């Protein structure tokens, strides 16, 4: 044992590490949620907790069940892949109600709504339809465009078109 005579202090320091490691394991055992790692690098119970939260969105299939005429028009237009609730907001209360007319959705104001995607910006791709403030001032977008299929078959009225610029990119 004489070989270890002068290593006592080193073993004690190493012992500190071992103790610290075991304390770490014990603390870890208590603080890491039991469901952690169940499905991946997160708390498994988080999925159940999320699923238990109230839903607000119905999904486009629910809308299309009753509004097949709109769905049909939309499916042929540029907004075919834009979900109904992206513009109309969460509609589960409307879709699941016994009398949907009692939870009638508020019609979006297109002068505000459309700009969220189509306001002109230099950072947007050139072929993405964009409009500046000088495009048909004072008119709502839906006066000329059907939001469910916004492409226009004919140019807007001549008197208004002469005072404004057409949108950049896309079909005018």
């Amino acid at each position, binding site marked *: 044992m004489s070989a270890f005579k*002068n290593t006592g*202090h*080193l073993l004690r320091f190493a012992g*500190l*590490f071992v103790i610290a490691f075991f304390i*770490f394991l014990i603390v870890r055992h208590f603080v890491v949620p039991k469901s952690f790692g169940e499905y991946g690098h997160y708390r498994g119970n988080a999925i159940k907790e999320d699923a238990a939260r109230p839903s607000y969105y119905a999904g486009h299939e629910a809308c299309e069940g009753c509004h097949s005429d709109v769905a049909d028009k939309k499916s042929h237009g540029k907004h075919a892949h834009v979900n109904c609730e992206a513009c109309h907001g969460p509609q589960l209360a409307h879709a699941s109600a016994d009398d949907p007319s009692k939870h009638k959705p508020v019609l979006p104001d297109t002068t505000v709504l459309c700009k969220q*995607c189509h306001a002109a*910006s230099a950072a*947007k791709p050139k072929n993405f339809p964009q409009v500046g403030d000088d495009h048909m001032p004072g008119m709502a977008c839906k006066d000329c465009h059907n939001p469910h299929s916004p492409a226009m078959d004919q140019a807007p009225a001549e008197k208004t078109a002469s005072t404004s610029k057409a949108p950049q990119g896309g079909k005018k």
Partner: protein
Amino acid sequence: MNGVEGFMYPNEIGLQWSILIVLYPYITGLVAGAFILASLVRIFRVEAVRPTYRLALLTALSFLLVAPLPLQLHLGHPERSPEMYFTPHSTSAMAMFGYVYLWYLMAVLVFEIWLDYRAEIVHFSKTKKGLVGFIYKVMTLGSTNVSHKALELDEKIGWIVTLIGIPSAFILHGYVGFIFGSIKANPWWNSPLMPVVFIFSAMVSGISAVMLLYMATTKLRGLKIDIACVDTIAMYLFYTFIIDFAVESLDLIHRIYEADESFRSLNFMVHTKLYIPHIVIQIMLGTLTPLILLAITQLFKLPEFVRKRIYVIAGSLIMVGVFAMRWNVVIGGQLFSKSFLGYTTYKLALVTKEGLLAAIALCILPFIFLYALQHFLPPWPEKDNTGVPEATH
């Protein structure tokens, strides 16, 4: 990000990383640099710089204790930080850094300091009374064996720890460069040279910091500065600085030669918004001037008092220059976005969580730690002052 809609890059509306994130690589760099200076004594047997050995170790420890604080302050919720250790994700560089930090703190710095000071700790545990004596007793871990053989063993183990410590210091700081260098969305940062640039600038700033600290503390204690020691540090500082300068120049030349799609935007930024911090402070004041000053001390035989003054000026300029380098990397990299359309502005707040006062407090904190540490573990080379007797057999 309130009020932001549509196509925007995050830093087009404001900077996400403040002065605290500038401090973070600066402080970890000082740790790595100070440790490299200490390794000159242990591993490379450069006896001339021995007077700074313990001071370098304590400096590294003081700064290492403060290193995570800027991040904690920036992120908020410090109570969540242990989760990085409890449930680390292997793809998270930050989580891996947590382990590197802990390894470097406990297995390298604290262990090496403990081994080096053991004789003093045992001595003080017997001579000091009250709470101080009790703390020393705890620090002995119950072993008072300071025989020659035990101390010889400590020396050998200390050598191995330092040897492991050098790559550890490189990993500790190389990681910080890695974090920036691996962000491919930011051409100002995205460079495989970034970790190397960070390591060498860290060595330069850490060596300067310990040199200045040694000169200042010796002066404050009314003792004579060991000029051979400072000359040797300055020589190593000069050589390391040349490598640092060469690597940074290589990075710059590579960017200019490559001239990718970001070049015009970055070049304009360097000549406008970053002109003062990058060209004037970092390159002219913080790099070329101290490099020329240190070269003069190496080329010409100057009187001792002139050399000392040059070392102080060069060391101070290097500290400012390396801070400017961190500033230009962190803040400069956020002034533009991947759209390369225009620049944003960083406004340094004063009395906020991430303001100037918080940054100044974080800069002062390591010195408070160092002041406290040097009371418990005197780093001064005049061993007679501590009254430690020769090792017992």
